[in-house]
């Protein structure tokens, strides 16, 4: 094992990790504001991946061109889901929210199974096998494109929360719900928007992930678990934490593939999760509950 190989694998892990980070960011935003854990997060991600695969197969649409379409579709899906289904559960006990979203996840997974069958589906672009060579280090072109797109999307999201008035209003709801009601913010509408923004993140991340790996119906639940590992490692409800955790898990998966065997990659992630839960339960960048 040469340093070149390690560097190649590490960079690949970081690039994939950027896409993971965007997915986790969506989960973190929804939880951080609405305090509802989206247990169908990975399943929605799989839906976005299938959408990208379908648009490519049916219309030859490059995933980057499909990106706005899938993001808009998932935004609309999240908007409707929050308004019609999740909203009445926001003030209900956590286990009821859990069962509701678990059910949504099961429906999505099995819907995908009915529509697309159990076999793996992917996207084969013209540039799928292209790569950049930096010295002896080989960097996969598709992963690079996906990572850059994910970073742009994440930066856009952070900018929205930092500078846009609606973004600030959403942060205000997370900060002090009573205060938000007192000054007349339309909390229901802001919650709906938040959920939609969170699922739109998944729309973008899913389209990008579809460029990198193949999708199966069973991938959904796996991604939900992965998103959880990321936000818990990074710090629940912390946006920088979700980004950092995503990259970290991307790297740990890549290293597991290199050092052990690729099929053991989840094991290393879960080991990391356990270590974090024992040593720093609030996550690496999370705030210690006061």
């Amino acid at each position, binding site marked *: 094992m040469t340093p070149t190989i390690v560097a190649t694998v590490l960079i690949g892990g970081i690039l994939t990790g950027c896409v993971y980070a965007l997915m986790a960011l969506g989960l973190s935003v929804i939880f951080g504001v609405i305090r509802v854990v989206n247990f169908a997060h990975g399943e929605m991600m799989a839906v976005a991946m299938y959408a990208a695969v379908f648009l490519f197969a049916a219309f030859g649409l490059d995933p980057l061109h499909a990106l706005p379409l899938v993001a808009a579709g998932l935004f609309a899906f999240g908007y409707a889901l929050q308004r019609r289904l999740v909203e009445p559960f926001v003030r209900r006990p956590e286990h009821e929210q859990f069962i509701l979203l678990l059910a949504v996840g099961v429906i999505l997974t099995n819907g995908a199974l009915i529509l697309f069958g159990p076999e793996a589906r992917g996207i084969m672009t013209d540039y799928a096998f292209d790569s950049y060579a930096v010295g002896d280090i080989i960097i996969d072109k598709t992963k690079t494109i996906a990572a850059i797109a994910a970073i742009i999307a994440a930066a856009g999201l952070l900018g929205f929360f930092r500078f846009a008035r609606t973004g600030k209003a959403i942060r205000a709801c997370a900060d002090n719900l009573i205060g938000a*009601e007192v*000054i007349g913010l339309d909390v229901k509408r802001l919650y709906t928007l938040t959920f939609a923004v969170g699922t739109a993140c998944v729309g973008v991340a899913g389209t990008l992930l579809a460029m990198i790996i193949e999708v199966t119906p069973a991938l959904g639940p796996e991604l939900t678990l992965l998103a959880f590992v990321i936000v818990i490692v990074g710090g629940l409800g912390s946006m920088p934490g979700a980004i950092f955790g995503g990259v970290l898990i991307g790297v740990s998966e890549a290293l597991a593939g290199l050092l052990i065997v690729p099929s053991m990659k989840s094991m290393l992630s879960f080991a990391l999760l356990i270590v974090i839960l024992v040593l720093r339960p609030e996550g690496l960048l999370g705030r210690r509950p006061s």
Partner: protein
Amino acid sequence: MLKVANLSLAYGDAQALDDVSFEVAEGEIVALVGANGAGKSSLIRAIAGMERPAAGTITYRGTEITGWPSHKVCEIGIGQVAEGRQVFPSLTVLENLELGAMLRRARAGEARNLDRVYTLFPRLAERRGQAAGTLSGGEQQMLAIGRCLMGEPELIMFDEPSLGLAPTIVQEVLKTIRQLNADGLSVVLVEQNVALSLKIAGHGYVLENGRMAMTGSGADLLNDDRVRQAYLGL
């Protein structure tokens, strides 16, 4: 201006308000007096659309607003400075103020209102970039009032604005409320300092166990033996 008629409100089995009627005239300060748990905050929350009354009506300038959600109540011109100040601690002072102007009614006048708030509370201008959670209690109260003013309300309901503040700041807060009133704002004031609030109020209402027990001019209530015994400790 604001008319509450036969309002009842319950939290589960607990009756918080029972057949309460209450009125605020344009340009007036109305003091709401009562012991802890008498229903003062419940009344304010019901008017603000944060609780759903079981019976009765709330009318504002001829429009019935009973059961309206809080954002619509704010939009019609009823502001609130809630108990505990309820600022957004991790947002900056300026962001807090900006969010007060999210209401459609307040968009056009935002710059003017911000100037007005900064003139009223120069401290907020000095600390505009600071997180609201790092402000002192008195400064947070100024921020809560300023944030409410950003929404251009015609009527403000103050719930315990001096709670937990140093005596000198209490005076300042009450002075501000009087000044706002002099500028044309109608005020509902719930204040632990009963003597002070009745002194500046045109009208007062005394709530006991969720029922309206007494009403009268501020001066009359101040001189009433029952009020003096129960709330002023005289």
